[in-house]
């Protein structure tokens, strides 16, 4: 196990270096130099231009710039936003809990609906439930979620007036940021209605963001169940006269879950990509919207830092999933 872990972690180093080159290179390959981009329409005097180039270190040779970038990175310095002048890392840490809360709720929703539905469809193969679920899940899988979000707003916020349109909580409520999770903070604040407001704001984005993972998990669980149910040990368990619930729950499901865990882990990248669209539609103040806004504001130092941080998250999650997989499936470790 230890050597498996070590090998897996070592493999991350070249990938992370590659990611850092992409993030570093991004600002440098943009047409025009970064200071001109920063100045935008306003004209800038040559002296000021040189001064700014020196301040941000753009006048050094490329190799030195990259080394400086890496050393800064090692000390947690990801640069400062061109627009707000705040450190990129601080901005990220302020906004990340919003994305994390939304993403966790979405994955909980996706697993809570997709997993049992997939199991049931696998057990009752070719039933009307199976066929309906497969149709629904293929539709969910093909869904342009930005459109789903717009439809949800139109129906539930516009026509029915049930849910708020944007943000994380009604402006009526104000309380200290303790955990960064609105659901928990609103409860801690003890203000009446605050939790309800937070939950109402969360529900549509959760469903929209969770739709694709739910569809994928349902399909994957169904096919994993089908495969496992055909195995000899399931037949043996049945022949021994075990009750069907025990056969399905204990013998089949536990083994079917192995590929499903990987699938769930792989959804994190999908969730982060989906967060870009979901957060934009629902004005959710998380890192997805932050990245889109920074690109349109040409705040390229934020884009650079954000790219690096988001890729790091994806890599860490993938690593965790791999290790988990090695833990539950010993055969992988020996390879």
């Amino acid at each position, binding site marked *: 196990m230890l050597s498996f872990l070590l090998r897996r972690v070592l493999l991350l180093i070249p990938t992370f270096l590659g*990611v850092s080159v992409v993030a570093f290179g991004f600002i440098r390959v943009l047409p025009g130099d970064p200071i001109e981009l920063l100045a935008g329409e306003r004209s800038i005097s040559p002296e000021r231009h040189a001064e700014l180039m020196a301040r941000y270190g753009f006048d050094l040779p490329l190799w030195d710039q990259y080394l400086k970038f890496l050393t800064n990175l090692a000390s947690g310095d990801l640069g400062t936003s061109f627009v707000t002048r705040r450190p990129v890392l601080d901005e990220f840490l302020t906004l990340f809990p919003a994305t994390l809360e939304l993403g966790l709720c979405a994955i909980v929703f996706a697993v809570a609906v997709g997993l049992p539905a997939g199991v049931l469809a696998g057990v009752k193969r070719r039933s009307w439930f199976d066929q309906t679920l497969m149709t629904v899940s*293929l539709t969910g899988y*093909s869904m342009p979620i930005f459109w789903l979000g717009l439809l949800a707003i*139109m129906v539930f916020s516009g026509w029915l007036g049930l849910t708020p349109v944007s943000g994380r909580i009604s402006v009526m409520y104000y309380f200290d940021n303790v955990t960064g999770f609105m659901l928990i903070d609103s409860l801690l604040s003890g203000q009446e209605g605050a939790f309800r407001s937070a939950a109402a704001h969360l529900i549509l984005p959760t469903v929209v963001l969770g739709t694709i993972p739910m569809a994928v998990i349902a399909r994957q669980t169904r096919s994993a169940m089908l495969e496992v149910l055909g195995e000899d040990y399931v037949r043996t368990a049945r022949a021994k006269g075990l009750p069907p619930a025990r056969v399905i729950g204990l013998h089949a499901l536990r083994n079917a879950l192995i590929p499903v865990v990987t699938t769930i882990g792989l959804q994190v990248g999908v969730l982060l990509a989906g967060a870009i669209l979901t957060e934009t539609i629902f004005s959710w103040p998380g890192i997805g919207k932050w990245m889109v806004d920074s*690109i349109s504001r040409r705040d390229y130092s934020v884009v650079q830092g954000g790219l690096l941080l*988001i890729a790091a998250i994806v890599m860490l999650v993938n690593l965790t999933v791999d290790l988990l997989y090695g833990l539950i499936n010993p055969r992988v470790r020996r390879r």
Partner: protein
Amino acid sequence: MSASAETTATAETEGAPPRRQALADFWFYFSENRGAVGGLVLVVLLILMAIGADLIAPHDPTQQFRDHLLIPPAWQEGGTWAFPLGTDAVGRDLMSRLIHGARFSLFVGLIVVSISLTVGISLGLMAGYFRGWVEAAIMRVMDVILAFPSLLLALVLVAILGPGLVNAMIAIAVVLQPHFVRLTRAQVLSVAAQDYVTASRTVGAGPLRLMVITILPNCMPPLIVQATLSFSTAILDAAALGFLGLGAQPPTPEWGTMLAEAREFITRAWWVVTFPGLAILVTVLAFNLMGDGLRDALDPKLKRT
């Protein structure tokens, strides 16, 4: 029905040359899957619609009827059959725009898949055939691309290249091709170990011949499936970029761009929000249905069950 199909399939294939037989086999399994056939029919209809857009569309997609702003669909009160699906905020006929939009979506799918398939197969072949440092270098670069959420990387690439449909296509192709590289490499690794490849090498076939003529054709089935499924990913991503204002630019009747323009009328005109998204969904669904059917028909493991 399936019994008669089986007899015709066997009757046709007996004594037929192997390629024709393979094709007949393929069609037999593919047509078993009703969803896949439905998807294929939809795709063909979409292609016909895209080709004949100028003939089918009732109006010019960019013509603005200034006296007919935000007219609802024909069956609703205030609607007219001159504009069957209604008009948008500047009086353009929605139906004509949707019909012309099919051109952009299919074009995006075609170009993106062609680029990522060509580049992906070439790199995957080299990685799987040469192994060693070539493989390590190619696969590490692919790992880097895959470390970013695809849409984010596409967004950033478009920020570098500048917004527009062509740049969006390039960006999506870059983001999609690692999947082809990985798939090709995995296939090459298993195919290259087969006896007929060794035999071919023994009689003096060069690397290029081995790669392209001996190995590649035997790697194709999963790649065809992946290509079909990537078609839908490409269409979705291009629409998403259009929606974020970084893909096709107005007044292009691209479906994602149309949705972005429709956002502010969400409470006043349900049709401008509903129909473009529905068009995207139906198109993507059609390709996914077809891809699923292809996988069932081309995967020998599933055939036996």
